């Protein structure tokens, strides 16, 4: 595994989208150091800003990250990318595959336009987790995002496919205008969740649930797919299994009827 450690104080954005495990896999350390990066208005060699150790394989760690580093994990397709530090916006933008692990925090638009792969954040994440890239009409279209702590406002905004599981709380308007996919919030959701929801599933704990006025209660159910969801998430993060047990029985609310939506909020009753 190659470990790149930032050893310079940055005063301008540094574009990192080209630095992926696959891009470095066949390069010798000298060649990695010679890679060109856009740093503000300049182009610099990677070796000028990063200390490098290890040899290339399918795994890459970038340490000492600051919010100046941009495009981390963008369009990642394979391999494992570890990010250590406090990341800026759009980490994992349009990610297609592989695994991206943020050992720290991430700002807004985490996993924007994501289409596949697994994105884990061990710290808090900013607004618009799994939303769209700027100008896009839909949010993420595939893949899985796991957040261990707080997520900001409008997580899963216009989400089209995929899965977001948040062990902590979310900010306001989670699942806003959601089109499809699945969002699990095990903490307390902020106000205005599922506004404009058309399809998809939002799983909430009973604590903190207050039925939106434009959703209708369709009753209590034991839904088989929740066992599959639980198994899938428990494989990625075993501690989630016990917390998902509460969803063995759910109250199903359908909406947002304000926009003729058929989305569902599944409230844990087990």
């Amino acid at each position, binding site marked *: 595994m190659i470990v790149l450690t930032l050893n310079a104080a940055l005063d301008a954005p540094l574009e990192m989208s080209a630095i992926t495990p696959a891009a470095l896999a066949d390069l010798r350390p000298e060649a990695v150091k010679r890679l060109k990066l856009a740093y503000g208005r300049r182009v610099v060699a990677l070796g000028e800003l990063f200390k490098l150790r290890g040899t290339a394989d399918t795994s890459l760690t970038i340490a000492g990250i600051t919010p100046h580093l941009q495009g981390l994990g963008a369009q990642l397709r394979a391999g494992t990318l570890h990010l250590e530090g406090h990341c800026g916006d759009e980490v994992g933008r349009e990610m297609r595959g592989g695994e991206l692990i943020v050992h720290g925090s991430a700002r807004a638009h985490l996993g924007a336009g994501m289409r596949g792969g697994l994105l884990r954040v061990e710290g808090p994440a900013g607004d618009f987790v799994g939303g769209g890239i700027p100008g896009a009409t839909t949010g993420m279209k595939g893949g899985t995002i796991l957040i261990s702590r707080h997520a900001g406002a409008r997580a899963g905004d216009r989400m089209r496919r995929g899965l977001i599981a948040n062990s902590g709380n979310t900010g306001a308007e989670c699942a806003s205008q959601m089109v499809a996919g699945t969002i699990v919030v095990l903490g307390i959701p902020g106000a205005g969740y599922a506004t404009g929801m058309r*399809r998809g599933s939002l799983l909430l704990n009973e604590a903190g649930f207050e039925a939106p006025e434009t959703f209708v209660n369709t009753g209590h159910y034991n839904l*088989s797919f929740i066992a599959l969801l639980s198994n899938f998430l428990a494989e990625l993060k075993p501690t989630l299994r016990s917390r998902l047990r509460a969803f063995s029985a759910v109250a199903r609310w359908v909406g947002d009827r304000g926009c003729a939506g058929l989305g569902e909020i599944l409230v844990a009753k087990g």
Partner: protein
Amino acid sequence: MKINGVLIENTFAEAFPMKATRLIITALNPTWALNSAVALTGFATSVIACGCEAGIERVLKPSETPDGRPGVSVLLFSMSTKELTKQLQNRVGQCVLTSPTSACFAGITSGDPLPLGKTLRFFGDGYQIAKKFGAARYWRIPVMDGEFLCQDVTYMTKAIGGGNFLIVAETQGQALRASERAIVAMRKVPEVIMPFPGGIVRSGSKVGSKYKTLPASTNHRYCPTLKQVVDSALPPAAGAVLEIVIDGLTVQAIDTATARGIRAACTLGRRGGILAITAGNYGGSLGPYHFKLHEILKRERAR
């Protein structure tokens, strides 16, 4: 070769390539999983007239199923991808979707995909919901007892159909008893089914008939009532013959099932009225898989 005084003829079963898939059917309790599986595998004894050959592979514990409920594993075999696809849709649509509390999953995870929920979802009339966890996609179809959960696709694998052996006995009762023992032993072998009623067939067939419209007709050489009339393959003491047909996902699985079945059938022994074990073939020119009884039994003993 003899086992317990029963003659094992030095012959072979001739089998054919087939296409197969495995489904896992789950339900609220084992009874309803089984009800659904029994319906799905009904009228599926032979591709000659049923479109496919199907059977229950085994009953699954909740810990072995994708949704943690009691389940049943079934295997379906057909001669072509097209026919297998058709049979799958018709049978799952009419026998699993309709069965209370059921859910249906792929039991094979690689190979060529065959549509399952992908086509059945349209029963949801627009209210169906897709869920994708990792690489697997599922469909939630609203039905009157809640939801029918069905995996988007199952996968097809190359398989073998038509492994067989025949039990020649003095009486019908003895042949049946030996066959029942064989089936009990063979049902413990994974990756095989014995598609006929109770796993046993009494109307072994040959290719063709004196009637032009029939593709198959009774295997007259093994009919005891015709012993003195035709070029019978039976010894004078034979009063009944029963056949066990085996479809399997691998040659190894059919080998194992054949060996265990023959040994179990022979536990009654010559004193129990079992005269011989033989196998059905067409001279070796039609099917590419030849299951040679002596070699299989020797191999299985060595294992």
